């Protein structure tokens, strides 16, 4: 899993927002479309794409997209 691939998959979950200014270090809550339901979408995506379980708390503690990536990456190497 590369950082870029994760970032790409993360952004794919959003359909209605202008993502041109978003980088992996952006705060994902600043994406207009973000809602509590998006946490579930991200958790499902991480399972489907990377076979990793992350929790709602992991997302709540994260600020940027990279923070989420780091959780996934750490869990991936731990497996």
């Amino acid at each position, binding site marked *: 899993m590369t950082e870029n691939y994760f970032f790409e998959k993360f952004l794919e979950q959003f359909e209605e927002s202008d993502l041109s200014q978003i980088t992996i270090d952006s705060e994902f809550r600043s994406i207009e479309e973000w809602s509590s339901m998006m946490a579930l979408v991200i958790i*499902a995506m991480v399972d489907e794409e990377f076979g990793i379980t992350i929790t709602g708390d992991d997302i709540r503690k994260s600020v940027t997209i990279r923070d989420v990536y780091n959780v996934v990456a750490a869990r991936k190497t731990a497996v």
Partner: protein
Amino acid sequence: MIEKSCYYDPLIFSKEREIIFDSHWLFCGLTSEIPGRRDWKVIEYFGHSLILYNSGKSIRVFQNVCPHRFNKIFDDTRGRGVIVCGYHSWSFSEEGYLVGNQELEAENDKRPCLKEYPTEIIGQFIFVALKTPIQSIQKQLGKETVEILNTISLRLTKRIFEQSLDHCCNWKFIVENVIETEHCLSIHQDTLVKAGYCQNSPIISFDSSHDNSSFIVPFSNDNFGKKRNRFVSMLFGSENVNSNYQHHFIFPNLLISNFENINFNVSKLLPINAERTLFDMQFFIAPVITNNQGLIDEFISMTIQFGKEVFEEDKLFLERVQKGVKQIDHNGFHYKSATRIHKFVESYKKWMLNGKS
């Protein structure tokens, strides 16, 4: 239209209790709340404290009052164990008979036992009759409702939340609120509407020989819905998901919301007086097919949050309505489209006038 005093007059309230609640089978709990032998649960209906008891062979409903000197037997709401009264330690068998050989005054030739109420079970739904029921449970509910209860029972596998929310309003205001969708666009904008549950018109159903009613609101498959499908199908399997929100009102006081066949609210209204009602609710989710505990837990917490918000949104208005009804000098209006309310009004009047179906 229901005459406005019916929403606050204590005399009418006692009449309702006698005519409607005492003559109907009343929903009092689910078998899954007392799954094991000697599990019990206490509920209060109009000052009757009831013990729902799993005897190992059947579910029984006893009066929660000791026949000796009338002590309340169980003080907690739930537990497991033998029925023992704390005052003089009389203990009762699973069938409600007094155990032991206490010597009693001769004038009592009968051995004391707990008062037992007639009970019927449909799927997981336990119904009790506070007085002698005037018709069979099948006749009261009707074939369709029996089928709905049986089907839903199979999906109520995991209880995720329960609470009793005290509402300072008449029980009928709550019924009227939950059986119409006209208020959703105004007050549930951030919850039901945003989640796509109330964007379409409801398809309403009821039949002329029973007092129950239902609606189905087809789910909006906008972007929000599509996003939802991604985790919903991972959690429950897309073949198990219905794209709609269904609501059932089972006269006089059982309410069931079925969200996409994956999460459910089962509620009963416990009227306390003409202006106060306990809204007793339980949330469930259907069986999950994933092992991803992070996803399951987050879905559960979102579902609980969502449900609580919806109930709070309604409660605020219901309590204002209760204050308003006493000030106004007419009986108000209903939307023509709110046919479930018309049906309820008709049933209510029929019972209050004739005392029979």
